[in-house]
């Protein structure tokens, strides 16, 4: 129960952060990606600011024997730079560039009740579902 409440509060903080930083706005994201157009460096500031916090704090936290509310850390175990990683990053990059939306801002953006964002999220969920089904057939 405690971890569910903690997760909810972290989600709220994250959603507020996306809104305050305007990363919830596809125009800001495309503006950053449009390096040869009227460049908008807001995304760089957001990512830089977030990274300063995580880069300093993460090593201090993982030095602990366990997290505060759970028995163990659950961290990614893959280390190889393989074709699923690269092809996935390429497909994601194309989708991100087309709409200016990535998973966090798209989900938080549901709060606006914009039908366009609901459409994007539905397609994104369908895409993950397709990948989950197709993945084992290609790479196994």
């Amino acid at each position, binding site marked *: 129960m405690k971890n569910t*409440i903690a*997760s909810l509060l972290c*989600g*709220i*903080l*994250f*959603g*507020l*952060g996306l*809104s*305050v*930083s*305007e*990363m*919830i706005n*596809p125009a*800001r994201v495309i503006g950053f*990606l*449009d390096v040869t157009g009227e460049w*908008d460096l*807001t995304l760089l*500031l957001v*990512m*830089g*600011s*977030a990274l*300063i916090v995580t880069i300093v*704090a*993460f090593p201090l*936290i993982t030095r602990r024997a366990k*997290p505060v509310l759970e028995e163990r850390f*659950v961290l990614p175990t893959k*280390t190889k*730079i393989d074709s699923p990683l*690269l*092809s*996935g*990053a*390429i*497909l*994601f*990059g*194309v989708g*991100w*560039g*087309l*709409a200016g939306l990535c*998973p*966090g801002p798209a*989900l938080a953006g*549901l*709060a606006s009740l*914009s039908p*366009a964002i609901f*459409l994007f*999220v539905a*397609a*994104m969920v369908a*895409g993950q*579902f397709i990948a989950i089904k197709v993945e084992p057939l290609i790479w196994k």
Partner: protein
Amino acid sequence: MIEPNVAGGLIGGGMIGLASVLMLLLLGRITGISGILTGIITWNTGDGLPWRTAFIGGLILGAVLYQIFIGPLPIEMQASGPLLIIAGLLVGIGTRLGSGCTSGHGVCGIARRSPRSLTATITFMVVAVITVYITRHLLS
């Protein structure tokens, strides 16, 4: 150049970083939104369904709170109709195959000094920049 949102970007970015740090400290988890979503889509009841749904719910709630206390969400859509569906599908498939998105690879993975995440982040950023160049400058 478009006027960047300096204060919002730095403060919002700090909030995103802090939320990711708290998730690692309290739950021992990486804040990768696409991965958290995957865990809900597969409905794996053994893999933390409550904290995952609480986080995504919080993400949306954070944006709702922004609308109540600060103002309308700054959202200017950049794509519509079929393009939005294609973008959503690509983001869904790509984040699943590539094991992450802007939050998991970009904010958390780089902080973990993961070469996989750094490679993924550079890849999807470069591909997104090229995508925007093609759609904004070559095709229009």
